[in-house]
């Protein structure tokens, strides 16, 4: 029965594709709606109009988790798309799925496409490459955390809006002043684990997990319960107790608070730019993510969040040629520069960053290059290349739970991080067992 349906489906598909006789269809499943969805559709249309050998069909499959699930279910049924968008926490899952994915470097080599891995920005692309620098998936939308500032609110508390906020010590002083002036929402954050633990570790060049944050093997163990992390989380916990840091939830619920002008400082992805620019009725600016001044090697570089494009196994050579063409098109400087300027996501190649600078975008939109600078100031170390941990979505859930215990004052930072490490390591062992 299933066999017959599959056959029927493929016959129908063949018939549907028949009018476009010579064109090979490349299927692309993604997770974008709204403005991002429109911009994605525009890229696909541009590609389709620019050549006649291939036609890319983009389909929206729900949010990140749903898209990944759709891809997995389709693979099990032998109906997988050519290209699947997967968020960064799914990287280890995809990587371990040998036989389900075809690494990008292989796709490029097989297709004989022009492909220079050195054209990409190391700290963006590093998340998705092997330890020996071979690209597994193509970064699509990558962002990094920065500090957003409501200048009007600082001024209202008699603080110079241009005050230096490079370090957490300086941020602490500003929070004291804000609180003393009666401000009831001095600091909020989005994505607490990503910003205040994962990026904090990379930015201070301390390991989040052993084995080069998991890049060197599945036997990795979490190590984010170190001194730097415990100090930071304890400080945040103290701020929470004093009403200087307001916790709003595990995701980016706080974005609404900041954009409506209710909060003064906001740690959030650089990709928050489009929304803040759109809605904010106050003066805002963007600063680099703060660091602790006493830590050696800080600031290193921050790491990315977002999604990358994975090529699925089991397609024809002709389709892989189309995939290679399309991925090359996406990483071309013009397309990348436009994407970067429209969305606030990072450019993935140096050429795109240079082009954006030449076009004068950074001069007109002050602060939009902060994220790029923060990512590229230093060559990434093994602590700041990225994270490659199995079951990472669940581990983030555990971290969320333990951090909530700190914000609520139920645990001190060290105890919470120790417990998160122990619980997370259990999941890593399970993942190792499943993928050995």
């Amino acid at each position: 029965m299933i066999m017959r349906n599959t056959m029927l489906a493929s016959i129908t598909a063949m018939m549907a594709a028949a009018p476009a006789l010579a064109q090979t269809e490349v299927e692309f499943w993604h997770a974008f709606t709204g403005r991002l969805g429109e911009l994605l559709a525009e890229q696909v249309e541009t590609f389709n109009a620019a050549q006649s050998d291939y036609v890319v069909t983009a389909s929206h499959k729900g949010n990140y988790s749903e898209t990944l699930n759709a891809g997995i279910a389709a693979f099990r049924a032998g109906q997988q798309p050519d290209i699947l968008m997967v968020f960064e926490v799914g990287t280890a899952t995809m990587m371990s799925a040998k036989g389900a994915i075809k690494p990008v470097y292989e796709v490029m080599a097989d297709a004989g496409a022009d492909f220079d891995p050195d054209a990409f920005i190391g700290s963006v692309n590093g998340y998705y490459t092997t330890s020996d620098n071979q690209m597994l998936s193509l970064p699509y939308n990558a962002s990094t955390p920065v500090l957003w500032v409501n200048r009007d609110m600082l001024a209202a508390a008699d603080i110079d809006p241009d005050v230096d906020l490079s370090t957490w010590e300086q941020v602490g002083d500003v929070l004291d002043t804000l609180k003393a002036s009666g401000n009831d929402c001095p600091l909020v954050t989005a994505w607490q684990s990503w910003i205040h633990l994962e990026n904090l570790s990379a930015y201070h060049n301390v390991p989040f997990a052993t084995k080069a944050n998991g890049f060197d093997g599945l036997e990795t163990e979490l190590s984010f319960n170190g001194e730097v992390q415990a100090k930071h989380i304890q400080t945040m916990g103290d701020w929470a107790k004093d009403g200087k840091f307001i916790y709003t939830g595990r995701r980016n619920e706080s974005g609404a608070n900041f954009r409506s002008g209710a909060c003064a400082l906001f740690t959030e992805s650089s990709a928050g730019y489009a929304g803040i620019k759109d809605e904010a009725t106050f003066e805002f600016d963007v600063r680099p993510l703060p660091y602790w001044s006493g830590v050696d090697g800080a600031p290193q570089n921050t790491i990315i969040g977002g999604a990358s494009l994975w090529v699925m196994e089991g397609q024809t050579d002709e389709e892989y040629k189309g995939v290679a063409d399309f991925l090359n098109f996406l990483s071309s400087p013009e397309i990348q520069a436009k994407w970067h300027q429209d969305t606030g996501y990072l450019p993935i190649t140096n050429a795109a960053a240079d082009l954006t600078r030449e076009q004068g975008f950074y001069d007109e939109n002050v602060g939009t290059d902060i994220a790029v600078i923060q990512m590229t100031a230093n060559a990434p170390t093994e602590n700041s290349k990225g994270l490659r941990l199995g079951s990472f979505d669940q581990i983030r859930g555990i971290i969320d739970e333990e951090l909530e215990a700190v914000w609520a004052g139920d645990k001190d930072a060290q105890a919470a991080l120790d417990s998160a490490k122990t619980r997370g390591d259990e999941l890593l062992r399970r993942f190792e067992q499943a993928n050995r």
Partner: protein
Amino acid sequence: MEKRVTFKGIWLPLLLVLPQLVVTAVFFFYPAGQAVYQSLFIPDPFGLSMKWVGLGNFEYLLGNSYYRASFVTTAVFSTLVTVVSMGVALYLAVLADRLIKGSGVYRTLLIWPYAVAPAVAGVLWLFMFNTRVGVVTWYLGVLGYDWNHVLNGEEAMGLVVVASAWGRISYNFLFFLAALQAIPRSVVEAAAIDGARFWTRFRTIVWPLLSPTTFFLLVVNIVYAFFETFGVIHTITGGGPQQSTTILVYKVFSDGFVAQDLGSSAAQSVILLVIVGALTIVQFKFIERRVHY
């Protein structure tokens, strides 16, 4: 005279019950069997390999103190959802039963929430109780109460209970109202003439006569609270703060469909199946004895 149809032979009756048997087999026995089978493995998400672990998944789960804690959370949650949704529904049904004018409108309005999908209901309640912009939060603030379900576990539990019970009230209301209207007026009136006041009449006549409906609703609501509430939890709290609203079925959903840990997810659904099965047996063995048909 007894109404009983007798068939000759076995084939015709078998043919007649076949559709039901097929439905049960396809939609219950097959998936349940698959779950039991999968719970003995650690499969990778793409189905490329299956590692046999025997009872390893169960050992892993039951050895985990956080998983064991979610049994208690589930018990609290299910009890509250059942009591709240049935209690409120019964109260409203009693009121609606006494209503003479406009009861149609009243009934129609009460049934509406049942049409709202759990996830949508979750979002609705979440907006009202949003810690910074929620309407209810604002009014509570005026009254001097600082609502913060993102950090306060008890408030979070209260919110998911209300959101889960809300849609259920409609369903329970319908059944209670029908049952109330099926009670012969003459019995109640006779008691009234004998001088029994409303509360006495309710306790000694109405409540016992409602018991078959109450029992049915009890079973159905517990099953609902155990199995169908993950949408509400997912949209409102995601199981937090800390683990205060992580109920068993939410963990099945998030481990399986968000985290792709299919072995653990399958083992959890087997555990859940056993619990609900046991609970239903207990209900039929002990509570049903007190039901008057």
